[in-house]
């Protein structure tokens, strides 16, 4: 009983972090019909800043890191990316009122990764001085790309069965290049490369690092406003999407937490790394996943999958998921 109380008091402290406050502030503004808008170009710049900073920091730290420890978490990430989509295909996509392609596309987005959720979790861990391996953010593409590929593959198999025709060959190569070229991943990977091969310490310390939190708050505000605005689209699709969007992120995060715990026992994966792995698995893609799916599964209704991800999945993953995993790690590992 005492343990549970302590757990909830820790959870409550996490709710007061600035990133979560700005997200909820954005939702509040949109709910009140505020005229405040964040221009598109500023929003894009924020995304770039965050990922460049995460990439640079990771790249500089990887120089001295032991990368062989990354193998098991990377394999777990690939497994999670595929498993989340397959489970979604077998549950959400079979529910009454859910169009199968829409369900598969939704599961694909929830298997893919959100850069903003990852950034929030990293900021929270740094605030509390929780250590994690420098290469953990680089697990992002290991989960993101397999999830999108599996979703597109499953949708093509389903559509071919419907039409009774031979299924179209899935352009795996073009999905991978499309994902790598997306705004989020290209900034992250360039940052990693520059951090690894060059010496960007001065620009990192004077520009990217100090501005990180400020830009994160603007990004959270924008995401909050977008989440509320898109809620209206959810009215037009089955209620199951809301249920899935609320439950799935936490299930995925807890599953990843369990697998991360196994990696902790086997190879000494850090508690901070376990938290971030859970965050990555629990997040749902909100920037670069939707256009990839839209192009590859054009018959799926974007209102269904974007609504469940942006309006329900991302707020749940950030507001409930991130504090939950930190509190859980605190209870399990004693941070």
């Amino acid at each position, binding site marked *: 009983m005492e343990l549970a109380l302590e757990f909830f008091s820790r959870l409550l402290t996490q709710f007061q972090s600035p990133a979560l406050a700005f997200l909820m502030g954005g939702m509040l503004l949109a709910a009140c019909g505020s005229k405040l808008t964040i221009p598109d170009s500023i929003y894009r710049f924020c995304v770039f800043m965050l990922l460049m900073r995460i990439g640079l920091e990771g790249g500089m730290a990887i120089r001295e890191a032991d990368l062989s420890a990354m193998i098991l978490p990377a394999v777990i990430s690939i497994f999670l990316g595929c498993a989340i989509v397959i489970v979604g295909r077998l549950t959400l996509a079979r529910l009454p009122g859910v169009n199968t392609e829409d369900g598969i596309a939704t599961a694909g987005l929830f298997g893919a990764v959100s850069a903003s959720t990852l950034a929030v979790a990293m900021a929270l861990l740094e605030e509390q001085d929780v250590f994690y391996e420098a290469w953990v953010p680089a697990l992002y593409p290991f989960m993101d790309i397999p999830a999108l590929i599996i979703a597109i593959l499953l949708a093509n198999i389903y559509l071919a069965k419907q039409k009774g025709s031979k299924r179209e060959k899935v352009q795996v190569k073009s999905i991978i290049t499309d994902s790598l070229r997306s705004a989020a991943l290209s900034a992250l990977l360039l940052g990693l490369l520059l951090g690894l091969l060059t010496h960007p310490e001065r620009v990192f310390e004077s520009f990217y690092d100090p501005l990180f939190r400020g830009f994160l708050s603007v990004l959270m505000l924008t995401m909050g406003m977008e989440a509320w605005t898109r809620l209206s689209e959810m009215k037009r699709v089955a209620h199951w999407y809301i249920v899935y969007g609320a439950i799935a992120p936490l299930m995925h995060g807890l599953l990843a937490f369990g697998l991360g715990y196994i990696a902790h026992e086997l190879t000494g994966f850090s508690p901070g790394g376990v938290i971030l792995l859970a965050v990555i698995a629990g997040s749902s893609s909100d920037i670069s996943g*939707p256009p990839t799916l839209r192009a590859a599964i054009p018959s799926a209704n974007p209102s269904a999958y974007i609504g469940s991800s942006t309006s329900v999945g991302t707020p749940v993953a950030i507001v409930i998921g991130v504090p939950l995993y930190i509190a859980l790690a605190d209870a399990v590992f004693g941070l």
Partner: protein
Amino acid sequence: MDHFKATKVVIITEQMILDQVAHLIENAGARGYTVTPAGGKGSRGVRSTGRAAVIDGFSNVKIEVITGSKEAANRIADEVTERFFDHYSGITYLEEVEILRQDKFALLIQS
């Protein structure tokens, strides 16, 4: 200067398929086109231009192409409608316009 009759095709659609529409326009023999951001209201809800479009490619664009050949204009409008508008949001319409330098709008003959 002489004025000549020509046809303008206007396509308002999702930015995501801009590359494919541009390719289609060039294949029809047009020499160029103009793209501007677009917002407004349609059957699939309100799209705004000022607010951040959080998701890549989900904002709208207006594509204008002028050609001296009425047939080419019709072909562009028909092909865009057939290929994209089942799954993507969009509208297209034709306008009669007057142009000044006729050679700018003559069809490129595909070799």
